[in-house]
């Protein structure tokens, strides 16, 4: 195939995929309120996408906090402003690193698992057999997983930020001797709930929506072969990561661009 034709084919494929993604969402949206009627299915999924992601999120949050504490102390001490360490760590986490890094970790830990699970259910005809039993797989399988991811993401991000703030505290206050009262009081005074925390939560919700959408779509759209499922899993991680980073820039510009 000549390169021009190849380029055209790739573009068409990408557009077709985007179209299928939108159709998938249109099919999913009306199923979402219905899925709330069966909370047990959502709770089961919350366990597998949320609780099982806790370890990686908490450990990463801790390390990110430790690094922020070290770097922050390093820089702030040049300006004799180490008492602002708490604010710096907290704002970095609540506004940016909490939602973004959690979403990236989520894509790797839970998103890939969702894609593989749905893809394998498709490959082994479980989705098809469900349809033949007059059960809509979008409603029974996809919607509860979507809710679980959407709910879990902001909670995980909040935990990430919390552990990170304690990580910064450990390095700054316990190891490097920053004044404990200053660390907390500055943090409490300067982290604004409406401005910072709420915006962080909004980011998390957007990322949760996108991560769940991509992961579930890729599984549902996977070619029903082992190769197809493996490719879909890769695409989930790559596309979610890119979407999260791109959206983060957009959201940051919208939220904090004018201040």
């Amino acid at each position: 195939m000549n390169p021009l034709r190849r380029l055209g084919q790739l573009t068409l494929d990408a557009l077709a995929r985007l179209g299928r993604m939108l159709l998938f969402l249109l099919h999913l949206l009306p199923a979402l309120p219905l899925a709330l009627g069966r909370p047990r299915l959502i709770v089961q999924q919350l366990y597998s996408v949320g609780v099982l992601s806790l370890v990686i999120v908490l450990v990463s949050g801790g390390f990110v906090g430790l690094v922020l504490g070290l770097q922050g102390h390093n820089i702030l001490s040049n300006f004799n402003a180490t008492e602002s360490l708490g604010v710096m760590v907290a704002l970095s986490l609540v506004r940016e690193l909490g939602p973004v890094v959690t979403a990236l970790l989520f894509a790797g830990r839970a998103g890939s698992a969702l894609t593989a699970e749905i893809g394998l259910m498709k490959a082994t005809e479980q989705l098809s057999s469900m349809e033949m039993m007059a059960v809509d797989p979008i409603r029974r399988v996809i919607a509860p997983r979507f809710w679980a991811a959407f709910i879990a993401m902001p909670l995980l991000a909040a935990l990430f930020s919390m552990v990170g703030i304690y990580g910064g505290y450990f390095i700054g206050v316990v190891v490097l001797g920053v004044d404990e009262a200053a660390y907390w009081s500055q943090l409490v005074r300067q982290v604004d709930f409406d401005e910072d925390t709420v915006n962080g939560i909004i980011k998390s919700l957007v990322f949760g929506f996108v991560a769940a959408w991509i992961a579930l779509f890729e599984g549902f759209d996977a070619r029903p072969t082992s190769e197809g499922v493996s490719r879909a899993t890769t695409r989930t991680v790559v596309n979610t990561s890119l979407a999260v980073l791109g959206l983060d820039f957009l959201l940051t510009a919208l939220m904090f661009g004018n201040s």
Partner: protein
Amino acid sequence: MSDALIEVENLSFRRGRRVIFEGLDLIVPRGKVTAIMGPSGTGKTTLLRLIGGQLRPDRGEVRVEGRPVHRLRRDELYALRKRMGLLFQSGALFTDLSVFENVAFPLREHTRLPETMIRDLVLMKLQAVGLRGARDLMPSELSGGMARRVALARAIALDPTVMLYDEPFTGQDPISMGVLVRLIRTLNEALGLTSVLVSHDVAEASQIADVVHLIADGRLVASGSAEQMRRSDSPWVRQFMEGEPDGPVPFHYPAPCLEDDFAARTGEGA
């Protein structure tokens, strides 16, 4: 015909450029076991999916109980599917649910029966396929034949009027093959079903089928009882029924003339 439960009329279906069916007509009589046979790749599974409304025909229609499947609204289609059981070739059991929960799945989804009644119904269905004792096993712990029987119990959980079997005998050892053959026949009698099985296992399928349809190249080639098929005048039908390696369906895939092919190679080498 009033005793036809499923009617396929002038059905055409293609996948991409490949023609699967071209003007296929056939009838599945009510209350009988009908075997649809044909070589691999003739679209037997596709036909089941067209009957179940998972695929749409390009032309023609499939009618179940007199109603064209692909023109039903979604809720009507789902109502029809509740009266239709499909046994997938792979079994398609839900791997995260136990045997019991697999069979209970359609009951839990479509009824609001109390737990005790669901338990009784599930055990009855499992008893019918001889696996009441396996209720606590997970699908990964089942042999291929057992998995297919569990899937069968699940397919009959809602007491369907039609059972569709997709290659039920493929990959079974002789004992579980015998069990399945007997099960399909006895379930058809005991539950007053209409059964359709697509298969290329001629011996087993013709053993239990009241009616046999042979399809090839997208069309119905012959139909009748198994006995009529075996005595058919058509060399193609006889080749298929007797499983002869060569005949109207050649052993060799179409290729250039043997001499030319080897001559060409010698030519290349020179």
